[in-house]
């Protein structure tokens, strides 16, 4: 039995927190995903006929169809996380004066960085550090109040002498904000990099649900890379596997007191189904119809142009692909601590499984 799931009387239950945790342990900063790709591969193997990792590290798992010549359906969630790389050294005086400068890989909100714990993924192993910040007592009283500090003015404190930092941390070393997933209240899960590992967990959940039945499609599950920077992980994976349909599973903004209601979906509302020009109308309609028929909690999310996800990237690969988008409501995107509800992740997984099953009745239609 898979290490991260346990069977209940009624069916399969995926331990979302543990699965996300397994993906969060190894570093997987956008562009440097070789380690997290390995974790993703291990998670996919029991659920697929074969798994391979491509040159830009997207992990591709395939479950064959029972029918020859069946349509190919790709489900994609990105396993890269926003983070940083070390760009230079900054020595201050004193015996613990070794600091490093960092640049962004992906759009991490620098306003949430000061005083956060980070992990520097050095060749010698994980080094812990703190994002340095000036305490209130030493603030410049003439500076504008509550001014946000840009990333280029931040640095990471490794608590070591400068010479040792240079020895242990080569330039370009990836850095991530430390946050194993944790539970808060009911079924809420908090942590860094829930974007998009929570959705990869949802795909695994869908694969679990489909585990024992013959499939009407060739099912391709992709843990893609570089989504946060250039989307090349999904593009090259889609090029390689030539799917007819590709559904991206990504996160979308969940409501918070300071966010405009019309630009968010409520947390707890299930899966957000994307509708718009970058998404194939037949796929979107089918997703909505299935969700309604099977009482899967869902909302509709209208995306007038670039969806901000791999769906847009995959739509124009080779001669084009019919794309869809299923999104997980997530609070505090791209900050040091994001929040989702397991209820919503499960709804996404159920919807994806139902979409695959729907090919038994025919291909997607309006």
């Amino acid at each position, binding site marked *: 039995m898979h290490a991260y799931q346990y069977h209940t009387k009624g069916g399969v239950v995926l331990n979302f927190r543990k699965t996300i945790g397994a993906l969060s342990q190894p570093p997987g900063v956008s562009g440097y995903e*070789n380690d997290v790709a390995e974790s993703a591969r291990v998670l996919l193997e029991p659920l697929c006929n074969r798994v391979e990792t491509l040159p830009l590290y997207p992990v591709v798992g395939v479950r064959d169809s029972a029918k020859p010549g069946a349509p190919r359906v790709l489900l994609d969630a990105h396993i890269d996380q926003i983070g940083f790389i070390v*760009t230079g050294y900054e020595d201050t005086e004193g015996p613990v004066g070794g600091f490093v400068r960092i640049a962004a890989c992906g759009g991490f909100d620098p306003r949430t960085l000061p005083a956060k714990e980070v992990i520097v993924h050095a060749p010698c192993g994980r080094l812990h550090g703190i994002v340095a910040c000036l305490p209130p007592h030493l603030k410049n009283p003439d500076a504008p109040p509550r001014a946000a500090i840009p990333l280029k003015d931040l640095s990471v404190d490794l608590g070591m002498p400068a010479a040792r930092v240079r020895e242990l941390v080569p*330039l*370009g070393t990836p850095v991530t904000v430390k946050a194993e997933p944790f539970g808060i209240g009911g079924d809420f899960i908090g942590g860094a990099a829930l974007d998009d590992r929570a959705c990869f967990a949802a795909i695994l959940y869908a694969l679990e649900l489909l585990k024992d039945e013959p499939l009407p499609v060739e099912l391709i599950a992709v843990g893609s890379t570089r989504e946060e920077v250039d989307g090349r992980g999904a593009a*090259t994976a889609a090029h390689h596997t030539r799917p007819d349909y590709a559904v991206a599973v990504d996160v979308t903004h969940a409501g918070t007191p300071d966010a405009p209601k019309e630009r968010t979906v409520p947390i707890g509302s299930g899966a957000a189904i994307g509708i718009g020009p970058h998404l194939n109308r037949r796929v979107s309609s089918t997703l909505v119809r299935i969700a309604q028929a099977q009482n899967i909690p869902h909302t509709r999310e209208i995306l007038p142009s670039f969806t901000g996800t791999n769906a847009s990237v995959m739509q124009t690969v080779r001669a084009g692909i019919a794309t869809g988008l299923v999104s997980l409501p997530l609070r505090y995107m791209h900050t040091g601590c994001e929040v989702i509800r397991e209820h919503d992740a499960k709804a996404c997984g159920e919807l994806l499984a139902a979409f695959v099953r729907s090919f038994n009745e025919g291909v997607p239609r309006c």
Partner: protein
Amino acid sequence: MNYIETIRELAEITAPSGFEKAVTDRLAELCKPYASEITLDPLGTLLVHKKGSGKKTLLTAACDTSGFIATYIDDDGFVRVGELGKCIPSACVGLPIRFQNGTRGVIGCDGGVEVKDLRARHLYIDTMGETVRVGDACAADLPTYASGDSIVSPAMNRACCAVLLDVLQRYTGDGDVTFAFTAQGMLGGRGASPAAYAADAERAIAVELTTAGDTPESESRSKVKLGEGAVLPVSVGGTAANLGLIAELEACGVTRRAVDERGQSALLGLQGVRAGVRACVAGIAARYSGVMTIARVSDMQQTAELLLAAL
């Protein structure tokens, strides 16, 4: 190979982005004795293939320079221009340029515009009455010369081409190597993906200029210095290089890592074709990307040695 002579010869050819034929013609001549096959791709990139039974590698170097294209000639004969590659408008005022047909001119700018507000549309070329047609292209008309071990040139991309030439001339192994002198590098590495698609190699290495950080108040955090040999940037302009490939190169010689936040590179174009390609940059430290650039011959030679060892 005599680097200064080769670079000077190539740099003196006026061939800005989109108009690389003049330099690719000369490069083709220089490559002919060593290549199995030479082709020009639809964008103007020169693909020089040295067939082999071993590993398939692609080496690239951009062969274009930045410049201007004549878009409009006013009643007084002043030539309005569009940029071929990003320019710093204030650095261009007073710059001598030469068109591909040999016509020379000087760049001027509209009066009454503050330096900080200067854009390309405020510039024009004064050709002193000599004829130029709309659509003609020009580049900086400045000499390339040596100073000690350093080379000073307005067309330092040609030094990257020289490194490729050096490797091509000396390589005797059985690897299958494509040398791509890419077009439109100054427009954001545009020539890279078609070249990578055509070459279909297992790994790709772009020879490019890397921002040096050894000048006063430099914003570069990696503090790359001239004279340190081959630089292997882990990231250029936000695009990650393949760390495995970097490790392979590091095993072949003395190198240093860096992060080049500002640079523009062929890296993204090389990596993202087909099912993805392992790619990285072999960087030559260079100061000043505005008008004249300074780099060291020893850095270029060491980069060539590194590539030869890695092939």
